[in-house]
């Protein structure tokens, strides 16, 4: 069924009895051309683009829980393309372009809202750095406007401009940045993949990866053995465990990143605001809740919940930036498990095992990357060649020194 206004009218007039589940619940077949481990945003997008761009439809997505139950449902939903380094810049630019056509492509409302993203700066040195970043974004073909203090004040009058520690000097305005409804992205890709014949198999945990003479031959799951010539590991948050089934040790350490949402409020924050010095970023959801997050808790963890010092740090940063939010009541907090690589950039690459591919290491930036990650991973799996915009996301770059250190802080596990 295609979703459109006519359907809503028709279903509304007929008691809404004609809506059907968005995807099938097939049993696993014994044999597939390709298997994608992980039914999150990246895995579902990979399956969708394998089917759509490369005509590969005898494929399965194996998910140990339910579709979209991992980090795609546990983030702050920000979509942007404001990267600086060659290697990152063209990838996220490609991703944003895919976002802009995503709803029409999927025939699914992912509530992509390009409300604009403003990165604040607080010193002359930071202004120079943001001017340079803005130029890199323009050179890439994306948009960036350098705003002075009074320009920012016109757009965001409610910030504390004169705080002693970090007075606001201005901001870099990325108008095409914004947010999207995170679950809907997973559902939209799932529906699109299912319609093209991909088997989406939930409650199917992979417990082993079969390798014969250096070549992958299939997987063992809680629902039986499944053979496949190509297997993709797309399980950010659990990459180390799944890769270990194939005997691989990855350059990844899992960290916890907390996020928060307040009670629903009337519209008050129209943009996405990023306060880098306080490691704080905020937007308002369409339901009215203020959605914000901070920095990592900074120790390895799989708990999917953080500790109170992290909460305190985020609240202090929020209060320093916009004291008006102090009276909003916090409703919920959650923690996502981040695949942290030493240089803070992801991995989309082959592995030393033939037919085994890896999409991992999304650090704290996986959500906005979902479309391009799926696009490039599908390209890699179908052609065995890296996609041009993802060619720098190599697994061996830490050994060779071809790093993608966007923050410029070094390539070591506790620095990102």
């Amino acid at each position: 069924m295609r979703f459109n206004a006519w359907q809503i009218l028709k279903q509304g007039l007929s008691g809404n009895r004609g809506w059907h589940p968005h995807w099938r619940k097939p049993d696993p077949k014994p044999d597939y051309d390709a298997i994608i481990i992980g039914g999150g945003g990246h895995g579902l997008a990979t399956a969708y683009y394998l089917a759509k761009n490369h005509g590969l439809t005898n494929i399965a997505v194996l998910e140990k829980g339910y579709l979209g139950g991992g980090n795609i449902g546990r983030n702050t939903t920000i979509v942007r393309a404001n990267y600086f380094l060659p290697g990152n810049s063209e990838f996220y630019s490609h991703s944003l372009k895919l976002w802009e056509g995503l709803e029409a492509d999927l025939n699914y409302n992912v509530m992509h809202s390009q409300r604009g993203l403003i990165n604040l700066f607080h010193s002359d040195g930071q202004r120079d750095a943001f001017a340079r970043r803005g130029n890199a974004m323009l050179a890439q073909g994306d948009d960036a406007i350098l705003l002075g203090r009074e320009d920012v004040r016109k757009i965001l009058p409610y910030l504390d401009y004169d705080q002693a520690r970090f007075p606001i000097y201005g901001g870099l305005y990325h108008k095409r940045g914004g947010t999207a409804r995170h679950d809907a992205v997973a559902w939209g890709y799932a529906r699109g993949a299912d319609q093209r014949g991909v088997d989406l198999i939930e409650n199917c945990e992979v417990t082993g990866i079969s390798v014969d003479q250096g070549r992958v031959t299939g997987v063992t799951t809680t629902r039986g053995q499944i053979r496949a010539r190509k297997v993709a590991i797309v399980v950010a948050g659990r990459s180390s465990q799944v890769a270990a089934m194939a005997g691989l040790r990855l350059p990844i350490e899992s960290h916890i990143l907390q996020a928060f949402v307040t009670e629903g409020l009337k519209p008050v924050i129209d943009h996405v605001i990023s306060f880098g010095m306080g490691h704080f970023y905020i937007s308002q959801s369409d339901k009215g809740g203020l959605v914000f997050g901070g920095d990592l808790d900074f120790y390895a963890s799989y708990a999917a919940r953080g500790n109170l010092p992290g909460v305190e740090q985020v609240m202090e940063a929020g209060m320093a930036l916009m004291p008006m939010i102090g009276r909003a009541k916090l409703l919920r907090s959650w923690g996502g498990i981040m695949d942290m690589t030493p240089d803070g950039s992801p991995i989309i690459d082959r592995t030393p095992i033939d037919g085994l591919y890896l999409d991992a290491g999304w650090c704290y930036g996986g959500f906005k990357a979902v479309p391009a990650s799926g696009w490039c991973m599908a390209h890699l799996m179908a052609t065995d060649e890296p996609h041009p915009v993802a060619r720098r996301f190599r697994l061996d770059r830490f050994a060779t020194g071809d790093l993608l250190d966007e923050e410029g802080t070094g390539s070591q596990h506790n620095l990102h």
Partner: protein
Amino acid sequence: MRLICPCCGWRDRREFTYMGADDYLHRPVPDAPPEAWDEYLHNRTNPAGAARDLWYHDPCGTWVCITRDTITHAVTDGTRLEDAQ
């Protein structure tokens, strides 16, 4: 979360700085091949469950090897690095 400092006992997590997994205890010899340095610096077992990692207790200046569970955040042991190696 509270961690164990061998000098000071149970202390608040905020008094500690995290360094990383206990792979850092196994530094290769200076003329080891590049692969050994890659393993030492970058590749990690990254266990979900029982783990050992290195923390620095800022107030007393002690490097500590903490044994803890990365899923439950339960901390079971804190040993001076000299004794952990």
